[in-house]
């Protein structure tokens, strides 16, 4: 995972990530079109696939809508780094296969536009622009496996396949 950092503040809520007026669909492409619309209406024009969202505390608070991480993933964001995540968002992100990293130091030091590389297995975030490196606690193995499979649906399917 490597891309340009887009910075967001503390307490970004899921209404800002994907407004309720678009929740009638569960089509990821349609949701992606409105990703971050109510916090940065130009986000989808500015970002490129592979870019990384870097935010403050409590990212993804508010509504439990799984559409939020789905929209971010379908928008092409390769990873979300935050000081902390709201817990439902955290679960939903893992379940739909959106890589997320809880990195207190990294999230506050990374500046908008920095080029960031993430190595999830090692729990490492590298800021290529400044040369800094931030260590984070890696996910428990079962969560890593879910993300690596692209989400819980594929993970369950694969395990059902194995047991046959």
């Amino acid at each position, binding site marked *: 995972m490597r891309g340009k950092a887009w910075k967001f503040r503390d307490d970004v809520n899921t209404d800002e990530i994907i407004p309720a007026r678009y929740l*009638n669909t569960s089509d990821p492409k349609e949701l992606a079109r409105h990703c971050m619309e109510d916090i940065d209406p130009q986000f989808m024009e500015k970002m490129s696939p592979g870019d990384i969202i870097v935010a403050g505390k409590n990212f993804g608070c508010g509504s439990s809508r799984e*559409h939020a991480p789905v929209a971010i993933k379908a928008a092409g964001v390769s990873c979300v780094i935050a000081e902390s995540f709201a817990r439902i968002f955290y679960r939903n992100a893992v379940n739909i296969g959106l890589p997320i990293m809880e990195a207190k130091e990294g999230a506050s030091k990374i500046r908008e536009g920095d080029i960031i590389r993430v190595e999830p297995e090692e729990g490492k975030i590298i800021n290529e622009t400044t040369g800094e490196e931030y260590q984070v606690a890696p996910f428990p193995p079962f969560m890593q496996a879910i993300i690596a499979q692209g989400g819980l649906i594929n993970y369950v399917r694969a395990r059902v396949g194995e047991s046959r």
Partner: protein
Amino acid sequence: MHAIEKILARAAGKDRVRAGEIVTAAVDLAEINDLYLQVIQSFEAMGGKGVWDPDKVVFVFDHYSPPPTPKAADNHRVMREFVAKEGIPHLFDIDAGVCHQVMPEGGLVRPGMVLVATDSHTTTHGAFGAFATGVGATDLAVVLIRGTLWFVVPEVVKIELTGRLPQGTTAKDVVLGLLQRFKADGFVYKAVEYAGPAVTDFSIAERMVICNMAVEMGAKTTYIQPDDKLREYLAARGIEDYPIDTTDPDYEYAEVHQFDVGQVEPLLAAPHSVDNVHPVGDYAGTAIDQAFIGTCTGGRLEDLEMAAKVLRGRRIPPGVRLVITPASKEVFLKAMATGCIKDLVEAGATVTSPGCGPCLGIHQGMLGPGEVCITASSRNFPGRMGSPQAEIYVASPLTVAASALRGRITDPREVLEEGS
């Protein structure tokens, strides 16, 4: 162990669990609302063949009821077909109300249970001594297949509420006061237990309010130790048989806080975050376009009665919209029986069908660009009730009713004094 740990231990088939441990727990009740067709899609995509226990599954059509779009109507159709095919006995259709109100009213929520629902305000059910938490679509689909889900056993924060609520204040002002102090990320990943004499004094409805909005402080779940008041509430709904867990005296809380409800004044959360909390007086005089009373936070009979107390025999000014959404059919019927609905309608209110109403910004009272709304619901995020250029103030039903009456943000104590 804490009572919450005892609930999780029982559900996981273990003698002991401790904070930080990941357990796989059996789920006693799983609720899906009409925002979440994705649950059925994920269930089918994972090869789901038959839900694990239809008696433990609940569908509630509350967010999109009655359907505001053809797509919403079609989503309801697919869900009704799923409910029929799977033999699920609990379908609360478009006439029923908000899931967090209709489930307790329907006798489905009881102490000691593990309850998951596709809604963040599932923390409400800590008021009933349940372990209850919100999950997303894929998690819920896994529950439908297996009947279990993994949880991290949470640390528990105890908040002791003391004192008596002053005139003109409500449980909503208490939870806004807590948000002011602990902020929107105060309890992320943690459980919040409310205790103390003020909690004992609170009605079940008031307890539901403070548990409901704990999620706005990031809480995973809440807990109030079941007492006689709860036992009476449950007995009235035919529920007599349930375990009551108690916290061991040597349990060590992650944090303990005291909060004197006697010091609370009417508060509001100003745009655009739930923890931007100030005294109502700081914003007095701000002109409003809409006032809203309803939802799982502020649409119970007690809330409607507070509004009627302010508005009875009076009239809201022209050009101000007052939208009232009873939380459930039961609330609606009772409010009709007490005359409260008549009073509100005569005062100029627009009453909608039970459900979530305009809270999530898809129908029944959306806001235009530049409009200002004061609401008894829980959230004021940009775009939450329609236009991202609208401004939303979150306050108590008393404050909302007083503001509707004047057409501008008003401390309810002014209006209550006048009326007495």
